């Protein structure tokens, strides 16, 4: 060791320790005396929080650190298993790039190339600044100038937004299950996630790669169904894991599932194959029979074959088999090739009708409604003063689609157009909670829209691209660090509730959205955050109260000790369906749709983008099975399995264009271009290019995912609300897969 005097002097000046009487005073400052016995590791029951089935899990915990997680045996949702994402949960928790402290930008210039000059601040400083900025904004421009890009949960967070009269709240549900939520509400009485695959006789899947890309509970259900002898038919323009598991796979033209579904309805109706008992007693078929029959008569199998490429004889045969099986089911889901084209609302309506004709709504083998515990929200425990009316303009134009307006969500697809073109300069303050711009079609326009906002707060776990544009960053706690009551609703023939336990000691200064709600509430709308006796709402007391009122235990600690509470009551099929029908029947013909300017019965609509001379190929995107949308790519374990994306091409197409495996190619659409390596695979049609979603995070942000891969969304045109209205897209289907492209070799 050869230290110069210069080193010693400088360091001494910096740390003030060298030459001190006791050089180890710093040791005394940072260490305390402690019991030398080793902490034992314990197994704690909790549940996964990455996606909604909340599979039961056991965490092995030592010194407040999660060392291992595994599935919880005998749990009805995971059945002792976790999917890849769930199993990699501890790696999310301990991602080195996790946001750790509140930060404030010091460089006013925003943009992906700019260094924001982050400065660490206390939570007090952060909350005071945010509250002051919100107040100043509302006073000057009204509540319509606030944009909250967030789910309306937890309930305390929703209460805060309601108390502030936030009118522009947007979440990703439109790129997810919004169309199905709207349709199920009026056709069967409410959105349900429960599919009784295990007892199904015939499972028709449009697009959805449910075995690889979904939930453990569904994949297990399909495997059991096959084991029980059920027939599974898969319509999909790509050959997926589900296709491999299926009894039959049909390589359908992209975005034409609706044509096949309409023709199947026509066959079942014209040949009187439907379940008469269910249809006559529990649907409004009799009341609208002539309109229904006349409507579907136009959709013959031959017509559908011309559009979809599926032979008419197959459509007819499958319709007959499905109806005759006595236990058919057609699930519907979300970003899975079928549900995100311009015609997705009509498709989920047709799917709902097929389920009604099969007579399996809330019956064995069909889609059924979850039997759940009723857990009161904060507004039931501590009734708030009346909320202010939500007044002001909707930046996404949602109010032009009455059925979407009723759902109280927002439209990702039209947000950028609203911020840049329809209502430029309206949004002055934005709060982003755990969403990244990769979730938007054509994210470039979203970047431009974000840059125009005066003040942006981003709360997240990791530094997503959105963080780059923030004025204040808040570090978020994760599901393994927080407590909650979780009611199951995916495999719920009887009520089940599971205690989400804070198994890990929170690290650094991460906090929950509930905490932020209360603290901002104290500063901005205090009357909404007090209990009847005038004290501030305490989240722990609130949790105890919820547990008690739901009958799950005496308090949260008691419930947590039980882990899972179940009531194995017998399943009694519903005979009354809250659809809005005067007789509480399921609705094939939906008069409420007609009353709101939409279609009472599903009409054929083509997808938005069809191949052209310049863009002769279908552009298909998918979410790989090991990832959750665009939020898990920085997980080091998942990243190792799939670090980047490629342009997946059929070898015949590649040969025609002289493209080799691994060669860089340029894929172009009318809104952008991406350069990425080619991967040749027979699983994709020769008239399509397929690219995985979730990659292309900007380079400097994330240690593992930053700069890897490209954004699939760069080729997907964003939409305006006028496009949706003109196309009859009354459910606001987001079109995040509706694009066409060209491909050419690079160099």
């Amino acid at each position, binding site marked *: 060791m050869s230290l110069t005097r210069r080193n010693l002097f400088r360091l001494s000046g910096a740390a003030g320790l060298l030459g001190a009487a006791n050089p180890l005073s710093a040791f005394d400052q940072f260490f305390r005396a402690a019991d030398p016995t080793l902490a034992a590791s314990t197994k704690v029951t909790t549940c996964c929080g990455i996606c909604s089935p909340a599979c039961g899990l056991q965490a092995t915990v030592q010194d407040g650190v999660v060392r291992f997680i595994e599935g919880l045996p005998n749990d009805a949702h995971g059945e002792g298993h976790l999917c890849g994402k769930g199993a990699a949960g501890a790696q999310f928790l*301990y991602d*080195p790039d996790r946001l750790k402290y509140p*930060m404030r930008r010091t460089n006013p210039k925003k943009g992906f190339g700019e260094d924001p000059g982050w400065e660490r601040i206390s939570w007090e400083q952060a909350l005071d600044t945010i509250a002051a900025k919100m107040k100043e904004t509302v006073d000057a421009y009204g509540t319509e100038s606030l944009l909250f890009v967030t789910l309306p949960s937890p309930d305390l967070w929703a209460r805060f937004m309601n108390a502030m009269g936030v009118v522009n709240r947007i979440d990703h549900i439109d790129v997810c299950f919004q169309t199905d939520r709207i349709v199920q509400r009026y056709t069967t009485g409410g959105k349900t996630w429960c599919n009784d695959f295990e007892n199904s006789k015939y499972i028709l899947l449009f697009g959805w790669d449910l075995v690889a890309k979904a939930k453990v509970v569904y994949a297990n259900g399909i495997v059991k169904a096959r084991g029980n002898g059920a027939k599974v038919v898969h319509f999909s323009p790509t050959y997926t894991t589900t296709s491999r598991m299926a009894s039959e796979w049909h390589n359908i033209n992209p975005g034409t599932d609706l044509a096949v579904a309409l023709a199947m309805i026509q066959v079942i109706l014209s040949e009187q194959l439907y379940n008469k008992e269910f249809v006559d007693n529990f649907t409004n078929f009799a009341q609208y029979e002539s309109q229904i029959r006349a409507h579907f008569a136009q959709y013959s199998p031959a017509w559908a074959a011309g559009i979809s490429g599926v032979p008419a004889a197959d459509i007819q045969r499958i319709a007959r088999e499905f109806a005759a099986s006595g236990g058919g089911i057609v699930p519907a889901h979300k970003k899975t090739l079928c549900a995100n084209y311009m015609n997705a609302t009509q498709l989920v309506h047709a799917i709902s009708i097929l389920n009604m004709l099969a007579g399996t709504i809330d019956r064995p083998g069909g889609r059924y409604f979850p039997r759940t515990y009723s857990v009161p929200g904060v507004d039931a425990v501590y009734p708030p003063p009346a909320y202010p009316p939500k007044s002001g303009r909707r930046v996404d134009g949602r109010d032009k689609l009455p059925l979407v307006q009723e759902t109280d969500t927002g439209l990702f697809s039209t947000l950028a157009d609203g911020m840049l073109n329809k209502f430029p300069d309206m949004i002055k303050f934005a709060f982003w909670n755990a969403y990244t711009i990769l979730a938007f079609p054509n994210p470039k326009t979203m970047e431009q829209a974000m840059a125009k906002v005066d003040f942006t707060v981003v709360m997240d776990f990791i530094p997503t691209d959105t963080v780059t544009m923030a004025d204040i960053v808040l570090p978020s706690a994760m599901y393994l660090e927080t407590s909650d009551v979780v009611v199951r609703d995916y495999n719920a023939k009887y009520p089940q509730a599971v205690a989400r336990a804070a198994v890990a000691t929170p690290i650094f200064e991460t906090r929950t959205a509930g905490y932020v709600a209360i603290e901002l509430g104290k500063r901005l709308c205090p009357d909404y955050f007090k209990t009847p006796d005038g004290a501030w709402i305490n989240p722990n007391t609130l949790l105890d109260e919820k547990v008690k009122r739901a009958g799950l235990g005496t308090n949260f600690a008691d419930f947590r000790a039980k882990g899972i509470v179940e009531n194995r009551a017998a399943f009694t099929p519903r005979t009354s369906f809250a659809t809005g029908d005067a007789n509480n029947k399921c609705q094939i013909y939906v008069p409420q749709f007609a009353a709101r300017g939409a279609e009472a019965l599903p009409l054929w609509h083509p997808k938005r983008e069809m191949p052209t001379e310049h863009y002769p190929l279908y552009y298909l995107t998918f979410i790989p099975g090991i990832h959750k949308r665009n939020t898990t790519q920085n997980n080091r374990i998942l990243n190792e399995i799939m670090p980047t994306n490629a342009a997946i091409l059929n070898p015949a197409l590649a040969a025609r264009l002289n493209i080799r495996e691994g060669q860089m190619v340029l894929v172009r659409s009318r809104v952008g271009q991406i350069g990425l390596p080619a991967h040749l695979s027979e699983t994709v049609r020769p008239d399509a290019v397929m690219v995985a979603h979730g990659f292309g995070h900007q380079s400097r942000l994330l240690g593992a995912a930053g700069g890897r891969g490209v954004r699939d969304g760069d080729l997907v045109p964003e939409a305006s609300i006028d496009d949706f209205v003109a196309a009859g897209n009354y459910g606001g289907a987001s079109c995040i897969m509706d694009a066409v492209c060209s491909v050419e070799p690079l160099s």
Partner: protein
Amino acid sequence: MTTATLDAVPLCAALGRLLLEAPDAATDPEAAREYVRLFLNPQGAPCPPWQSVWEEDPGARRLLGPAHHGALGWYREFGFAPNLDSEPADHIGLLLLFYAMLLDRETPPAQVAAFEKQHLAWVPRFAAALQQQARTDVMREAAEVLGELFPGA
């Protein structure tokens, strides 16, 4: 790796504290920003100060990995625990302070060598990264001293 001598005690202690304490933005904004940029940057810190993040295998890099538990074990064995509950035990500052304490107590060389092997082998790489990334004089000096103390293989 250093030839452990008592001379290293004040330097390790000084470096430990310097790397653990975030400067106050009100009194020294430049130093505060430098600290955030190097160690806590929400846009990907170039010098994360935790041993678990410097695992050789990129797939194993995380916070609170085995190195955290290993460090806790060492602290415990000597009857100590870190004061900051929310800071991982394998923070370079804590490891350096503990190392200074081991040297100061004239702990048997074999034990010191075992600690060096388990918890300080990554320090040369960290020092090199810090040397490359530091923009303020103080951090540049700290990196230089650290590099001299832990010159690597």
